[in-house]
């Protein structure tokens, strides 16, 4: 079921009303049935794939906890990983693997390759398999006890607000909340409703309307685009994907909150980041911390311990890990993170780009010290375009288009036409091949980002002290947001992260 639809809003109201009127066990049954219904609105037959993953990890985690034999524990964990990753590999990477094999065969002169099967990717599989894996690993690491109640565990994996596109939750964040029914607090309804409204606004008013320009622009032959066009399209897509994905998170967090369940934040204004490292602390926080804890640390060979209180992350002890190993682990992690997003080499390029940015930033930070105000302004000015540029391979139709557009940015003539300038044609001296609307919208979004940053840092603290003014401003804001959602609410475009 898609969030930006009347069907979902009606479904949510019904589920929330029933949720608050039921005791614990029936409540868990309600959530389970509602989550399967939510998922089944897309395709009911793929519920079985999802339940297979749930059942495997429920059984294996219990068995891991029941044994002290380290070899047996490790074997059971391996079975869980193979099963979950195997499911993911089959549905997501079979076609990619066969296509690449065929390319290799053709290089050796073999004309007949593998037949490419038509495999439909079960929606949300990348998210729920990772979530389930994190539970099993945490049980193996003895950070949490195995869950013995199947319904509770199943709800952790399939809980509908976060089922399709996250946030990727840790078991410790959710089990206790599902287990104990929270007290009804009106503020949860306020919080949840606000978040849902924000999310719907970002999705149906902003993301879906920017998407029209992005789709038109990326269809154009890359050879006809100037450097300004490439930057503009990159920025437009960067904003589209941010609004789209953060919208999903807002709605997920809001929907859960209506039932008194608190999810952690998944975005923290990433386009206000002042470095690549800062960016990844603000973008898709649940996935980046998951990747760090369950992939990067193990690849580094870092021993981990759970440091936080009931917490969200594992902290590393001091380890003697060589720089070379860290370097390799970083690139491997990012390449895998890229592939997680999509079965195509363009996503791997995206991952490698971010690895390069982080390595570059680390080197810069170790060599150069600048005053704080300069770090903020220079940092933002440099980080924003670099992070936006990372979206190019994410969106371009092919690796060839990615490279073509990327190399356009390094051709001076793609920025400035001196012949036109000498002839007195000022506007034509800056080659542009898109309609003026593209540039206006991209520029407005960048200016809007700056304004949001300034408001959050300087106006918000002031407004907190002026309650009447704050009330009027909030009312006006909600009037605008609600009007936008009311007018634009239509499920014409699914969320971008559904394809992952």
């Amino acid at each position: 079921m898609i969030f930006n639809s009347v069907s979902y809003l009606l479904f949510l109201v019904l589920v929330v009303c029933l949720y608050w009127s039921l005791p614990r066990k029936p409540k868990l049954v309600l959530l389970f049935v509602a989550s399967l219904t939510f998922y089944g609105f897309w395709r009911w037959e793929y519920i079985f794939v999802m339940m297979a993953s749930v059942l495997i990890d429920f059984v294996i985690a219990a068995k891991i906890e029941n044994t002290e034999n380290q070899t047996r524990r490790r074997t059971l964990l391996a079975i869980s990983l193979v099963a979950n990753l195997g499911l993911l590999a089959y549905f997501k990477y079979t076609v990619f693997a066969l296509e690449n094999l065929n390319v290799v065969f053709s290089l050796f002169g073999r004309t007949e390759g593998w037949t490419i099967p038509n495999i439909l990717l079960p929606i949300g599989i990348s998210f729920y398999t990772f979530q389930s894996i994190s539970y099993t690993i945490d049980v193996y690491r003895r950070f949490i006890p195995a869950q013995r109640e199947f319904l509770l565990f199943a709800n952790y994996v399939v809980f509908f607000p976060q089922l399709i596109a996250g946030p990727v939750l840790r078991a410790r964040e959710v089990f206790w909340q599902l287990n104990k029914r929270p007290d009804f607090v009106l503020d949860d309804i306020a919080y949840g409703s606000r978040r849902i409204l924000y999310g719907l606004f970002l999705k149906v008013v902003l993301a879906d309307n920017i998407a029209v320009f992005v789709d038109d622009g990326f269809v154009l032959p890359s050879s006809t685009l100037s450097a300004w066009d490439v930057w503009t399209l990159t920025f437009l897509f960067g904003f589209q994907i941010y609004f789209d994905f953060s919208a999903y998170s807002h709605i997920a967090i809001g929907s859960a909150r209506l039932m008194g369940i608190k999810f952690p934040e998944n975005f923290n204004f990433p386009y206000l980041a002042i470095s690549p490292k800062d960016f990844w602390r603000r973008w898709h926080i649940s996935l980046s911390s998951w990747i760090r804890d369950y992939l990067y640390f193990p690849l580094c060979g870092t021993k981990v311990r759970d440091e936080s209180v009931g917490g969200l992350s594992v902290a590393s002890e001091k380890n003697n890990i060589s720089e070379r190993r860290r370097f390799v682990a970083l690139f491997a992690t990012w390449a895998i993170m890229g592939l997680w997003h999509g079965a195509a080499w363009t996503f791997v390029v995206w991952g490698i780009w971010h690895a390069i940015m982080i390595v570059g930033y680390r080197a810069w930070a170790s060599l150069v010290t600048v005053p704080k105000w300069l770090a903020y302004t220079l940092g933002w000015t440099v980080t924003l375009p670099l992070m936006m540029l990372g979206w190019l391979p994410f969106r371009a139709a092919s690796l060839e288009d990615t490279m073509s557009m990327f190399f356009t940015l390094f051709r001076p003539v793609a920025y400035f036409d001196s012949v036109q300038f000498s002839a007195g044609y000022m506007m034509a001296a800056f080659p542009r091949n898109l309609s003026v609307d593209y540039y206006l919208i991209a520029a407005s979004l960048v200016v809007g980002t700056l304004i949001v940053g300034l408001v959050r840092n300087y106006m918000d603290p002031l407004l907190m002290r002026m309650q009447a003014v704050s009330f009027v401003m909030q009312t006006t804001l909600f009037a605008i947001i609600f009007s936008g959602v009311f007018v634009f609410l239509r499920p014409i475009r699914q969320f971008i992260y559904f394809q992952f």
Partner: protein
Amino acid sequence: MHIREEDRRAERENSGLLPLVFGMVVALGILVNFAPNQRIDFEQTGLGINTRENFSSKNGEVFHCSDFNNGDQCIKTMNKNKGLRHVLWFGASQLHAINDMQPGDRTAVSRLHEKLLLRDTLLTAFSQANGNLQEHDVLFEYIRQKARVDVLVLGMVYDDMRESGVRATIKGALLSKKTAKALAQSSTGRLILQRYKDGGKDISSSPKKYTTLQQKTEAYLNERLSRMANVWAARADFRGQLVVALDKLRRQVLIARNAIFGIDSKKWTVRIDDGQYAVNRGALAAILQSAQRAKIPVLLYVAPRPIDAYFPYDLQKYQAYKNDIAKLGASYGVTLVNLEDTVKGDVWGTIDNGVGKIVTDIFHFKASGHAQMAKSIFKALDPILKGLPNQ
């Protein structure tokens, strides 16, 4: 549970029900107050001053359609008249728009339809405001799967080379597997399929065309809500009004820019972007190739325009475009017929040029202009019809 700073801030910023409730009440009040009681036809507003659209039918048989949603009516007419030769005419709003329309006025399509019936030939037309070649490609492949086409008539309007995408009311044709398979024969077709890979399942069509439970449910709920509350039914009007308002704002910005930089808005130029041109050219090649494979003769013509009115395009590029299209057509055995100067006299309408000046509408004309156009299309079509085998 460990709480991070961003979680704490979110808690602070999102508490309080009253502003939310007040805001929603205010918004609903404004929307209900301003919701129009009758639906607004935004297609008409884009046609120019005092210009109206007119889609033809005769004796209950529809022969002039606009898109996938009503196209089945035209296809039904074609299949009811299998004994006649079928001429399929694609174009933009010039085919269905009449300036200063009076009772009894008819479009070129209607006139030509009548004339061709006397020659045992059924004319069917599909036209859309700012219709582009990508849309014509989709429609052509869709129609060909469902009905026989003996001759294709394709109007070339330079301005439409800058149009992009396939509108919601046409991309539903991509739901047809046969249409998708036919489109996939060309690179432009594959681009279109990739772009609209969800098959264009848009809620703007009738419920029976949807395949998933989500779409059926959503369509049902929207229909019910529209019947219950006028403000819900008026949402499309609000969206249209917002687009019109943004367009007016854009015009004011451009007028201000012209005033600041001393630009004479009578001499404004419309740009045809190379990229969009290339995509539409690819769609034209796809149509011509498909027609050639199916042995369907094509009448490719340059659309009429007022020769003595200001033409807001780079004239060198426009000539290069005509040469390019002629060469492309020739590579598929199709001759480009130039009908630019075939609608003469004081028959053209007027339009706001986008920067506050009223100028000659170089696309739409009066009923007498349609009569001239019908005559010139017939003259160009006649040799092709004579060359067809008898039915």
